[in-house]
């Protein structure tokens, strides 16, 4: 239903051009900005260069504030393999290296280098290279210093696409389709600089070793087509005119248009022996090799609600304000600026953002140009979106799944094949913002995948930790068994000696044995030097232990067993203490009487505190459980876990309290 009705095109080009499914015809708005030649701008007062203007790693800054730089000087070098360099677009002084607002949908700030031009525009020493005869690997490697990235909007570092460790390329496709309305920068580039474009294509051909070369241009650019056809006269470059359908400028769509090859979204066209470059990118390659000029500027269409829409050669880092002024200023009712085209562009956060390598077009928007959409109606399943989708997806199904957070089904219906071109939203009678739903669904799936990875990693670490503790426990029990054997032998030996002199020592040994036994039964990390600790310290340690287990810092067995162990420990310590006191009742006087109530009271207070803490934590857990939603599984789990631990801690505290009471009773009796 929405197939292009280009009869002339069909009749002439059916052999040359393969039409893809779907696509939409858009009102072009190109005549507004392609009447004037490419304009030059005066130097702005400041150039703000974001370090991140490309896909990949942030480059490393090579200059400091106050340095004087020349035009084309490297000020940030590429970091890692997927990265691009930044060069000074004109001579001047580094004014700042700080965060500034980026031209990005998020509006977030990021590190930028600000240059104050000195007005002289002095070039650094440039080094052309012989691209016709030079070693291909050397040439490609030198591109790391060129700062050249894809100028079609993706901003992917170009040297990666020309690296030698890739599949062999037999066909080079130059993307000059420029399918979005309002954008005319590639059109003007071809009209004026066709000779340089052809040289650029030759550079790319040499570096890739491609045999077939095609340049795809939409048929709404007749002047550009004519210029290019004349320019490729004596070369083996083919000019392929494709019908004007949005989104024919998408790389995979263009490859299908000119070659008939379907490249799925999860594969690259290089796996099919095809490489695609934007027409402005190859021109940049030519300028770099032939004249030694790194990437310092690009053509930008300044159009929309401005007084004199035009294309300009803009230095990177030029503030948007400067560009708008050059286009005669924005009309009074301008509400904001859009970077990119009307189908896939985004709102710019302010007029102070800089022009970057990815900025092919700036549209001054107003509510007359782009009317606010009416509220979305329910989907009526008319399937116009499915008819328009260039990837043959079912947008209405993806919409239902995204809306109900059914991400599994959305992925079954190939959510990630969506190129977010917006053709579906364009035709929807219910004005549903379909692309926003898919962006939401995609980001949720990615976030869930990341959370899953993190959870898997945490699980592995926990399992390893449990194994380690098990191993340590076994080592410890072996050690204690050996020590107990030794102590027993010593006891037997001690019994046969003089009795009264050894009662003290006997008591000490008995206490030690009791402790060892108790320690053997517990598998928590018991402290080693417990022989000379006062009862108060011991109580505090027992206290801390229960708190540690409640907080999940120590691994616990079943709460019941723990209670038993704790009770046993406490009882054993109490017994040992009683024994010691019995033995030393004669020698020590009065201290125990004063320490006892203090200990008890002290201990009592601490037990009360622990119980209170446990209660508070439980109350918090209850409240927290009510707040968490069903989707947030991780948090629910934590709460349940925490709940169990808190319950255990409460039980232990209670047991400790009762044990203390029984011990106290025993002592009293």
């Amino acid at each position, binding site marked *: 239903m929405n197939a292009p009705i280009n009869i002339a095109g069909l009749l002439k080009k059916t052999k040359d051009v393969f039409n893809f*499914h779907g696509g939409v015809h858009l009102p072009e708005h190109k005549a507004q900005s392609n009447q004037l030649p490419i304009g030059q701008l005066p130097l702005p007062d400041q150039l703000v260069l974001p370090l991140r203007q490309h896909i990949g790693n942030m480059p490393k800054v090579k200059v400091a504030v106050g340095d004087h730089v020349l035009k084309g000087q490297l000020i940030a070098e590429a970091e890692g393999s997927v990265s691009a360099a930044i060069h000074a677009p004109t001579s001047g002084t580094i004014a700042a290296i700080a965060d500034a607002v980026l031209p990005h949908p998020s509006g977030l700030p990021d590190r930028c280098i600000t240059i104050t031009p000195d007005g002289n525009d002095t070039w650094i020493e440039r080094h052309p290279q012989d691209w016709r005869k030079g070693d291909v690997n050397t040439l490609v490697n030198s591109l790391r210093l060129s700062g050249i990235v894809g100028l079609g909007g993706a901003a992917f570092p170009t040297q990666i696409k020309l690296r030698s460790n890739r599949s062999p390329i037999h066909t080079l496709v130059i993307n000059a389709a420029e399918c979005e309305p309002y954008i005319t920068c590639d059109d003007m580039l071809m009209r004026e600089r066709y000779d340089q474009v052809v040289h650029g294509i030759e550079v790319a051909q040499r570096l890739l070793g491609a045999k077939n070369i095609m340049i795809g241009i939409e048929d709404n650019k007749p002047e550009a087509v004519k210029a290019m056809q004349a320019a490729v006269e004596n070369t083996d470059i083919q000019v392929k005119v494709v019908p004007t359908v949005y989104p024919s400028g998408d790389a995979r769509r263009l490859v299908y248009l000119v070659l008939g090859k379907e490249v799925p979204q999860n594969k690259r066209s290089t796996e099919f022996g095809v490489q695609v470059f934007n027409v402005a990118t190859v021109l940049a390659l030519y300028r770099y090799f032939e004249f030694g000029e790194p990437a310092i500027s690009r053509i930008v269409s300044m159009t929309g609600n401005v007084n004199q829409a035009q294309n300009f050669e803009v230095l990177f880092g030029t503030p948007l304000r400067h560009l708008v002024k050059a286009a005669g200023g924005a009309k009074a009712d301008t509400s904001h600026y859009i970077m990119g085209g009307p*189908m896939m562009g985004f709102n710019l956060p302010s007029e102070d953002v800089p022009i970057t390598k990815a900025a092919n077009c700036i549209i001054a928007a107003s509510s007359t140009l782009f009317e606010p959409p009416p509220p979305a*109606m329910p989907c009526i399943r008319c399937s116009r979106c499915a008819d328009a989708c260039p990837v043959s997806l079912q947008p209405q199904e993806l919409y239902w799944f995204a809306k109900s957070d059914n991400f599994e089904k959305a992925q079954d219906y190939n959510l990630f094949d969506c190129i977010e071109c917006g053709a579906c939203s*364009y035709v929807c009678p219910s004005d549903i913002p379909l*692309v926003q739903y898919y962006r939401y669904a995609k980001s949720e799936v990615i976030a869930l995948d990341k959370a899953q990875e993190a959870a898997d990693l945490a699980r592995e670490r926990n399992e390893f930790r449990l194994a380690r503790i098990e191993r340590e426990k076994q080592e410890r029990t072996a050690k204690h068994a050996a020590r107990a054997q030794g102590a027993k032998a010593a006891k037997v030996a001690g019994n046969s000696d003089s009795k009264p002199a050894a009662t003290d020592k006997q008591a000490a040994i008995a206490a030690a044995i009791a402790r060892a036994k108790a320690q053997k039964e517990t598998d928590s990390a018991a402290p080693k030097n417990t022989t000379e600790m006062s009862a108060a310290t011991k109580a505090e340690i027992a206290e801390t232990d229960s708190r540690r287990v409640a907080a999940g810092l120590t691994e616990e067995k079943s709460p019941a067993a723990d209670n038993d162990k704790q009770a046993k420990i406490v009882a054993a310590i109490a017994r040992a203490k009683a024994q010691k006191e019995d033995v030393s009742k004669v020698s020590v006087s009065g201290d125990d009487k004063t320490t006892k109530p203090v200990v008890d009271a002290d201990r009592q207070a601490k037990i009360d505190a622990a119980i209170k803490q446990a209660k508070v934590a439980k109350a918090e857990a209850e409240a927290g459980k009510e707040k968490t939603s069903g989707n947030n599984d991780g948090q629910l789990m934590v709460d349940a876990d925490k709940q169990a631990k808190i319950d255990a801690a409460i039980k232990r505290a209670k047991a400790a309290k009762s044990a203390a009471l029984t011990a106290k009773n025993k002592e009293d009796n």
Partner: protein
Amino acid sequence: MNRSPYITNAPSVSSIMLKVLLALLPGIFVYAWLYGGGILITLVLATATALATEAIMLKLRRRPVQPFLSDYSAVITAWLLALAIPPLAPWWLIVVGVAFAIIIAKQLYGGLGYNPFNPAMVGYAVLLISFPVIMTKWPAALSFAETKLSFMDQFNYIFSHALPANISMDAVTSATPLDYLKTQLKLNQSMDTIQVAPIFGVFGAKGSEFVALAYLAGGAFLWQQRIITWHLPTAFLGAIAAMAGLFWMIDPSQFANPVFHLFSGASIFAAFFILTDPISGPTTPKGKLYFAAGAGVITYLVRVYGGYPDGVAFAVIFMNICVPLIDMYTQPRVFGHKK
């Protein structure tokens, strides 16, 4: 707009629905000319009921009323049901039918876009099963009816069930051609003797064949406006024609010819206006073919072997149940994927 894409070229839901209403007008005009103005009364009653019940339901469901009333989808349901029932039916018949269709078959499922069944057909099925006698009392076309009723007579009859003094209902109404055909075939009459009866017109049922032609014109308008595609009407009519042709070739004395089947009953009407309801129908092109073909086959079988003269309503409702299955199995091949 404030987000990409910043432009749109889509017609609104209400403009699509209005065009459907426009496409129904030729059929309504011929209908009124052949059978009298009673149909207009029914249409008005139906529209009023539909809008009123929709407004009440939206208020009860705490949804905004104005945008949904002004999308005219309720009006379409009302008109389709009004055109499907006998024009001289008492006023409460259309009111009950439309109310059921809007309240239960549409709003209770979630309103616009959420109903799994075609609301008009659900309303029709409910009326047919609940009031079978009234639903089969069709007036003969004015041109050959024994007695003709004026517009005021029809108005009176619809609201008060009163007829002019010397006229009885039997003189006004007659069986529909499909109904007549069925009963006569059961009485073992052969096709030749049946088809000379006056209710058979030039190529279809007398009278309604021209209404069908008018609906065909409306359907062509919808196709030209790209509101419907060719898949549904072609597959439905093709299936009926194929089934009818097959049976007729086997035994012409027992089965009517395909042209008759195409222009009788609700065939054309259903092909362009009933099956093309986007909400309850399939979304894939291949799915539409299977859906419509299935509906055509069932319609024919109900006509020949079923207990009702026309089977479109039941066929459509049954295929509506199959839509999720059809959609799942007719997903088109995604770009770059192997099938």
